[in-house]
């Protein structure tokens, strides 16, 4: 494993206590008398929510779209990332002339609770202890993330979101929004997601977490206090996870058995193969922008997600009486959140006669397809959103 190269101007690592103040975008601070009641029973306070917006809220506040990011995403949806300098994670979907056009919509994305891009998480200072939370940060759930987002939406004076949209863990939040706040969601687009995390997915997350905690530099979660950082553990976690975001076909097409910068096998454990070099690169760049404890907490939140369990084991009961218009999207080669998961969701929505569209996009690029150039996906989504805008009476500029 290569050590990570130098960070960009706004370094996350080592601990940069000022990061949260230096980031572009908006911040919303809640004091001790405005705590967030978490599922684990803890009242979190004080806390900060960092979010970014694009476009303008219209006069009747009906054009707001809440974008919900995935496990390792953040609020920088459609602009260069302040830490890595790379394009926004949904740059292909969001922007002028694109499917989610700030010319038509007021787009909002909030860094999730427990995250490490400005919203309060385990790397932030625990005011009671005078040191970073680390493992004393309370456990959070998908529902907690959504409760936090509600604070932002309330702050912006938006009664009803035109659309909540997100892929993977973002899709879980979409479902939680639609189930918990149906009157505030006109349209919901859960993409490449599921109403519960499967045993296989929990298993992959556990591998990642164990890689982190096995790193001696993790220091029982106190690495920030110790001035160390579990680069290797977090990078291995990312490498394992990254494989699950792709597909056998896409890996084969991209790399095959091609060798990396060498004419023949080295008969050693260097990165002989391009696919190894690629994964090492994915791991080493990830640790520059992501906090290891955040990774533990957020993966756990996904593992705990089971929408049916909160409704007596009947998923349909989560959506009974809903007037929200749903568009469920899956991708043929996604084996992390396979189409069967989306189909189970659609069956539950049908059982309450919800207004639902369901498309499976043919592609061989796996789970990450929702982040990639998939014109059929974009066209379907644009058609759905246009239909919803018509029903919502949105004025198109």
């Amino acid at each position, binding site marked *: 494993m290569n050590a990570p190269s130098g960070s960009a101007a706004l370094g996350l690592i080592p601990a940069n206590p000022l990061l949260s103040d230096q980031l572009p975008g908006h911040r919303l601070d809640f004091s001790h008398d405005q705590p967030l009641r978490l599922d684990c029973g803890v009242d979190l306070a004080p806390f900060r929510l960092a979010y970014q917006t694009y476009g303008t809220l219209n006069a009747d506040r009906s054009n707001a779209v809440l974008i919900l990011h995935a496990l390792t995403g953040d609020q920088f949806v459609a602009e260069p990332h302040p830490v890595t300098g790379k394009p926004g994670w949904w740059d292909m979907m969001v922007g002028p002339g694109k499917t989610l056009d700030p010319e038509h919509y007021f787009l909002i994305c909030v860094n999730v609770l427990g995250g490490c891009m400005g919203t309060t998480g385990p790397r932030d200072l625990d005011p009671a202890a005078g040191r970073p939370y680390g493992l004393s940060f309370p456990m959070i759930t998908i529902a907690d993330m959504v409760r936090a987002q509600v604070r932002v939406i309330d702050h912006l004076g938006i009664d009803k979101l035109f659309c909540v949209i997100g892929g993977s863990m973002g899709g879980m939040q979409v479902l939680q929004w639609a189930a918990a706040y149906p009157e505030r969601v006109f349209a919901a687009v859960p993409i490449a997601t599921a109403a519960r995390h499967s045993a296989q997915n929990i298993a992959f997350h556990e591998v990642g977490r164990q890689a982190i905690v096995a790193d001696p530099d993790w220091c029982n979660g106190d690495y920030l206090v110790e001035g160390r950082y579990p680069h290797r553990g977090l990078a291995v976690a990312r490498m394992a996870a990254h494989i699950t975001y792709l597909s056998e076909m896409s890996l084969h097409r991209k790399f095959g058995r091609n060798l990396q910068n060498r004419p023949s096998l080295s008969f050693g454990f260097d990165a002989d193969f391009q696919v190894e070099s690629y994964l090492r690169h994915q791991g080493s760049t990830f640790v520059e922008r992501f906090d290891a404890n955040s990774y533990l907490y957020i993966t756990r939140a996904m593992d705990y997600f089971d929408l049916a369990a909160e409704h007596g084991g009947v998923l349909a009961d989560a959506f009974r009486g809903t007037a929200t*218009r749903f*568009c*469920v999207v899956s991708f043929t080669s996604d084996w992390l959140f396979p189409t069967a998961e989306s189909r189970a969701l*659609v*069956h539950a929505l*049908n*059982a*309450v*006669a919800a*207004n*639902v*569209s*369901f*498309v*499976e*996009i*043919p592609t061989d690029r796996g789970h990450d397809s929702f982040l990639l150039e998939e014109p*059929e996906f974009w*066209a*379907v989504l*644009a*058609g*759905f959103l*246009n*239909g*919803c805008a*018509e029903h919502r009476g949105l004025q198109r500029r």
Partner: protein
Amino acid sequence: MTAIDLATPRRDGGARDSGGVRRDGIRIDLQLIADMIAPGSRVLDVGCGDGMLLDYLMHFKAVDGRGIELSQAGVNACVTQGLSVIQGDADTDLHDYPSDAFEYVVLSQTLQATVNPKGVLSELVRIGRHAIVSFPNFGYWRVRLQLLVAGRMPRTHTLLHDWYDTPNIHLCTITDFVDLARRMGITIERALTLDRTGHHVRERQGAFANLFGEQAVFLLSRKPSAG
């Protein structure tokens, strides 16, 4: 999974498969179905193909329309037009819906391709207060004549496939259908037959219709009608 081949009349918009007769922009059998549907009602179109009927109903009858379509390409095309459509199968995916969820459930040119037509029919009248079912009539005189004279499996405007690649695994005549509906306690509210040109629409369901109707459109309901 059953193979409901919606290439039969619906997927290509029907210009080829259903006799090619259109009125007011949509296929005449779809127009007849649309005429049976009250404005503003909730409609489920099972086997909605490219969404032609749903699109018409939404724009001209202001219905709250949903669709189920077997082919993913058809589904994606529908959703791209802003229609609420899911990928699904008439044989397996209707039992999810609650009873009386819709005013009308439409099954156009698909019944004959289902694995369990009787089960599908009972689901249609359970989910919808009304069901509208259209199908090619195997009692049509040209069908009978082909079998009688040529001794070959019939091929007509509505039955395009060779016997070995047809999706139509449960063909029936109008008389057969009326008989099944009666045995299932389903009320036939209206029965229309179309001749091969689609122009001569007749309101009848007897032996004459069974001989001269190339297609049939039935408006059904579960409860006995007052009349």
